[in-house]
């Protein structure tokens, strides 16, 4: 309860007046002769109990009357659930238009329901309120009420995932910085459990977070990722089955979207759209067959022989379900001509053996000329080279001079300590032990592709790739590892050519290619975050905990959400009610005081 005129509460001291008057009047009553005292005494004896009760009642009534009048003068404002006007409020409406809001539940778009509530929240604001709108992109949009309402009306399901915990934290900090008496954050979201990451939003005291209760869970499956490796597309599924455990295979269709030539232009212009169904497959449960679809994988072979060298774009598709946004996902891969590789005798036997295997698998081409040379210290000119340190330490200096003569700023230095390989970009050798190595030192530009003990171990500089160790079991366990041949394949066909992996990013479905000069060196495939496929809503307790805890956050159904909005600051002046009560008390006092007169 707050008061418009709190100083008037000083008048509560007047509440003691009836009691004081009562005491003072009893001290010195005037004295009069009255012969019929015997009648008075008899009357008083008969009425003593009634009079005491009456005195007490009158004292209470008069004290209460004084208190009520003083309170009315102070103009108290009390919280009310419905009706009344709210105090100026800083409000952020978080409207979750992430891809999952495009799901259809009970024949209605989830976003439509959220949009109605957002519209209602903003409509109830007044000119004294400050309002912002936050969509899944995380941008806080201020503006007039009409402008924000127009924004709400034009919102469509987007492609960005909303981290609700972070969004609530940002919104809370914003409203908490406002001088308004009321501070509220309205969360209008499907409250996916995947959107409420472990943790708890730090909501300042005084900020109320009201979240709309999510609708019922619906089953959904989507394509989480597509990787092309070794001529096959590996398709991972994601989603939820609304609690039911399913083991039925899921059909997946692969379409080849288009070809991008070696000298292709930016973007997707120039893609040759074949639009044909390349392959079909059935996704089956992986190791973790639970109620969700995590771990469901299907590998579909691509018709590599019929595809010309270059960058290709494809699309994997599932049968349509409640959420269409994740039913298709694009992917890109490069069909490359096998490199012509030559290994010098100094390259060692393990390298030669690996190349033989690759040659048999047509990953390395035969023929005259050479695209890539693998050496053991020498620095051939005019070609792409993969250089190992020389086996004889005495030749390290000569090898370094060769590097200098080629303009390479890197060189082999002193021996380094043993350790495991750390190679995020070449995951097949990640963790393999190195027992002997030279430190790679240099100041020029170059890509560090792998490290040992934090020091560069695999460097790409221009057309050279330098190794800190020889590919020999005396130096490293790599030649005996299963990933050795794929590593050599990656070295000669990808790493030495400077090509990056195909990466994935969140956004509207598309493929963007990265260029280096006139060459296309990589691609980024955009699509929805795989976590959006799981439409399972978080439980109320989980949501409340994530949104600030029970003291700050509430999860409410539609009607409660409408009534609770602004209720934290909704006040009504009850001075009129108190004056009515005072009038009632006064009449009661009058009745009690005059009844026995």
């Amino acid at each position, binding site marked *: 309860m707050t008061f418009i005129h709190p100083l008037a509460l000083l008048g509560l001291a007047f509440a003691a007046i009836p009691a004081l008057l009562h005491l003072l009047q009893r001290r010195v009553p005037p004295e009069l002769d009255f012969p019929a*005292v015997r009648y008075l005494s008899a009357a008083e004896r008969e009425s003593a109990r009634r009079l005491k009760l009456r005195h007490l009642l009158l004292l209470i009534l008069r004290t209460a009357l004084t208190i009520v009048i003083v309170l009315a003068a102070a103009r108290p404002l009390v919280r009310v659930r419905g009706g009344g006007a709210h105090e100026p409020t800083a409000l952020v409406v978080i409207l979750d238009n992430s891809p999952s809001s495009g799901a259809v539940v009970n024949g209605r778009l989830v976003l439509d329901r959220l949009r109605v509530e957002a519209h209602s929240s903003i409509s109830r604001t007044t000119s004294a309120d400050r309002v912002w709108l936050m969509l899944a992109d995380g941008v806080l949009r201020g503006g007039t009420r009409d402008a924000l309402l127009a924004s709400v009306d034009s919102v469509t399901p987007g492609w960005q995932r909303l981290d609700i915990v972070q969004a609530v934290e940002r919104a809370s900090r914003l409203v908490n910085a406002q001088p308004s008496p009321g501070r509220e954050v309205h969360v209008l979201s499907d409250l996916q459990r995947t959107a409420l990451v472990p943790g708890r939003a730090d909501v300042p005291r005084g900020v109320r977070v009201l979240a709309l209760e999510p609708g019922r869970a619906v089953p959904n499956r989507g394509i989480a990722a597509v990787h092309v490796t070794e001529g096959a597309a590996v398709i991972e599924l994601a989603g939820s089955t609304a609690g039911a455990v399913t083991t039925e295979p899921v059909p997946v269709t692969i379409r080849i979207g288009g070809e991008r030539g070696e000298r292709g232009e930016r973007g997707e212009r120039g893609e040759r759209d074949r639009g044909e169904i390349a392959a079909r497959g059935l996704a089956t449960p992986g190791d973790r067959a639970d109620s969700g679809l995590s771990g469901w994988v299907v590998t579909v072979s691509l018709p590599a022989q019929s595809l010309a060298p270059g960058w290709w774009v494809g699309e994997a598709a599932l049968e349509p379900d409640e959420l269409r946004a994740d039913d298709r996902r694009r992917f890109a891969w490069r069909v490359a001509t096998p490199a012509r590789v030559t290994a010098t005798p100094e390259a060692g036997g393990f390298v030669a053996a690996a190349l033989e295997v690759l040659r048999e698998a047509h990953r390395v081409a035969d023929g005259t000329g050479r695209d890539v040379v693998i050496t053991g210290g020498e620095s051939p000119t005019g070609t792409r080279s993969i250089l190992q340190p020389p086996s004889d330490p005495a030749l390290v200096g000569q090898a370094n001079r060769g590097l200098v003569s080629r303009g390479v700023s890197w060189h082999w230095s002193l021996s380094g300590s043993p350790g495991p390989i750390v190679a995020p970009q070449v995951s097949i050798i990640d963790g393999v032990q190195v027992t002997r190595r030279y430190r790679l030192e240099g100041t020029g530009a170059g890509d560090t592709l792998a490290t040992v003990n934090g020091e560069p171990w695999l460097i790409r500089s221009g057309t050279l790739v330098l190794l800190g160790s020889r590919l020999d079991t005396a130096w490293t366990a790599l030649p005996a590892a299963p990933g050795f041949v794929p590593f050599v394949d990656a070295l000669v066909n990808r790493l030495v050519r400077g090509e990056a992996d195909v990466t994935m990013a969140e956004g509207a479905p598309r493929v963007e290619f990265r260029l280096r000069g006139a060459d296309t060196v990589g691609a980024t495939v955009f699509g929805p975050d795989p976590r959006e496929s799981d439409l399972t809503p978080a439980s109320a307790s989980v949501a409340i905990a994530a949104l600030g805890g029970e003291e700050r956050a509430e999860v409410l159904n539609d009607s409660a959400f409408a009534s609770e909005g602004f209720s934290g600051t909704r006040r009504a002046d009850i001075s009129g009610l108190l004056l009515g009560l005072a009038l009632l008390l006064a009449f009661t006092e009058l009745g009690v005081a005059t009844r026995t007169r």
Partner: protein
Amino acid sequence: MVSRLDLLDPAEVARLGGIEIVAEGVVEGFLAGLHRSPFRGFSLEFTEHRAYQAGDELRYLDWRILGRSDRLFVKQFEEETNLRSMILVDASRSMAWRGSPERLTKRAYADRLGAALALILLRQRDATGLVTFDERVRQVIPARVKAGQWTRIVRGLLDTPDGQGTAAHAALQRLTALLARRGMVVLISDLLFDRDLALAALRYLRHRGHQVVVFHLMDPAEVELEGPPEVRFRDPESALSVVVRPRELARAYADTVRREIAAWRTACRRHGIAYHHVQTDMPFGMALRLLTT
């Protein structure tokens, strides 16, 4: 305009002069308003006959003469002096109180009422006496009918000062010794004493054959309690005091007074005693008329 003193406000009448003047004026007015003596037939004896005239009461026809001579004669009566009346006036301290300066004290009212009553009785040639008392008997004037008796009674009233306490039963016991023949006893008092003791004495008088009349005097302020919001009321006789809020105790007090009056009336009626409640703002004529009812 009212010209009869017996019907005027007692306080206004009292301002006209002393007790004698007031009493005479009241009695004159009172008797003028009556068609006949209020005590006719009570103490009268036959004197002569006269011829019957239309309008004479048939009960006074002499049936013997009618039987013998077939003529109508009515009996004529003469007032007799053998009735003895004693007027008892309470002169206790409580009688000296009045609730308003505009009214007579109960004692002043009692003196004037007693004097008027004595004058009426003496004019009827009844022997009339006076006893005044408080905690003891103050004045005793034996019942006589001789000239100057009324003056002595008035003097006795005037010579009796306001007393302290009240002992009505003692005065009444003393009275039994003074009234050898049956007669009438009129007690004028505020009855603020022990009811049982007083009733015992009155019952004794009644048992001796006396006609007993009680005038219960009360000031209007004793009937309807009034006063400041809170007040300490003190009994002038006993110094007993009590703190009350008149407004909130008024109803209970009025109930108590009504019960007390009813108790006196019931007790008196049970023993053949005439009881009359008189407030000091009642005109004297109305109080005297109570005797005729």
